[in-house]
């Protein structure tokens, strides 16, 4: 595990040095994605510096009850996340969000280390995303021996993406999640991988897709066997982008809004139809 971390840190260091080299005439490709989020994932895209984003994310209930609750639209237990992000300097964004599930407060940072260039001098975009979340439930929900540190969880992700042409952009990611405290039977640490992308079908609309897989790695698990491991997260959606907004309407198999929760606690199995509708609205202001 330490070896993997060292390799990731070394890779980030090398890429950062490359990013600081003298600018060449090879310019970055046009935006591979329309916004910084893609259903439940992050993209390598960060808006122009001094851009403020307000994100409204909403997930309904599971679709499996059919018409009785209109495929989950009227089901109880919907999840909501409201967030503000701000681009401090070019390619560096910070943010804060608050979710209904576990009342997570998440503080995030994203840095696009290098953008893909048009003449393939640098053929991919590379970004890192990290957050720290604070579980905001009542003290009594944490059982005996309560410490404030029990509320913390961390998520870090390396994103590598490529805009192949005007209509297709794809990303792959590798992530590490850590919870200071978890429920019995659930690992504190989890490594996951995933891929996602967009297919443009008009000047303002795209189809989005994602698939995230929490890995079962024996060397880091604390348990002899996995009794109820987190399930992969499948998502498919439709994105509409205007000058000041990005809208997503999607189907996703996780009810969480922050990536560490989705990686560790997702019990929904998309192969059994455990999916739910959701939408996101992102409003951009430039200063």
């Amino acid at each position, binding site marked *: 595990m330490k070896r993997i971390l060292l390799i990731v840190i070394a890779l980030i260091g090398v890429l950062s040095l490359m990013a600081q080299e003298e600018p060449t005439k090879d310019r970055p490709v046009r935006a591979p994605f329309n916004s910084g989020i893609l259903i439940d994932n992050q993209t390598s895209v960060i808006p122009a510096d001094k851009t403020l984003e307000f994100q409204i994310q909403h997930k309904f209930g599971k679709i499996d009850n059919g018409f009785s609750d209109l495929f989950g639209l009227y089901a109880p237990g919907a999840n909501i996340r409201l967030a503000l992000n701000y681009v401090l300097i070019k390619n560096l964004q910070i943010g804060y969000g608050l979710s209904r599930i576990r009342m997570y407060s998440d503080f995030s940072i994203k840095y696009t280390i290098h953008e893909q260039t048009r003449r393939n001098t640098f053929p991919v975009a590379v970004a890192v995303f990290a957050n720290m979340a604070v579980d905001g439930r009542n003290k009594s929900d944490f059982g005996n021996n309560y410490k404030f540190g029990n509320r913390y969880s961390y998520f870090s992700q390396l994103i590598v993406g490529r805009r192949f042409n005007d209509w297709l952009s794809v990303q792959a990611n590798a992530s590490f999640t850590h919870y200071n405290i978890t429920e019995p039977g659930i690992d504190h640490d989890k490594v996951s991988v995933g891929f996602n992308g967009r297919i443009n079908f*008009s000047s303002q609309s795209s189809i989005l897709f994602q698939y995230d897989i929490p890995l079962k790695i024996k060397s880091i698990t604390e348990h002899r066997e996995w009794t109820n491991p987190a399930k992969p997260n499948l998502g498919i959606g439709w994105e509409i982008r205007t*000058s000041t907004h990005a809208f997503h309407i999607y189907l996703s198999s996780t009810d969480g809004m922050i990536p560490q929760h989705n990686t560790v606690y997702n019990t929904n199995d998309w192969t059994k139809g455990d999916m739910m509708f959701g939408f996101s609205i992102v409003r951009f202001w430039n*200063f």
Partner: protein
Amino acid sequence: MKRKIFFRLMLAVAAFAMIAFVVPQEQKKGGPWEIPKEYKEKKNPFKDDASLVKLGRTIYNKHCRSCHGNAGLGDGVMAKNQKTFPGDFSSAEFHKYTDGELYFMSIIGRDEMPNFEKKITDEEERWAVINYIRTMKK
């Protein structure tokens, strides 16, 4: 008493209706643009680059269409909310502007026409929009 209230109410409705006729509903036309010399003389490095038309259309649809309309007639869905008519890009009068002047009007903006420097950051994309607007002649 009831008749008095009814009479006053009718009077108020009649006054409102008359005011509605008197207050002009049309949008005003924008006054002449004050365009700095550097923009008037600004040259379009991508003039007649047909490969940019598709890009120009994409960016126009994303940032401009909601006010200026599909064909640039100033009839987009948001146009009615503006105090100033967004302009007719198909008119001969409009096409008398130089590319540099159109650049200033489109990217720098004024009043209700927003600034797009932070939204369209790439110079090539800015000129692609100008080139696309140029295709909207009658």
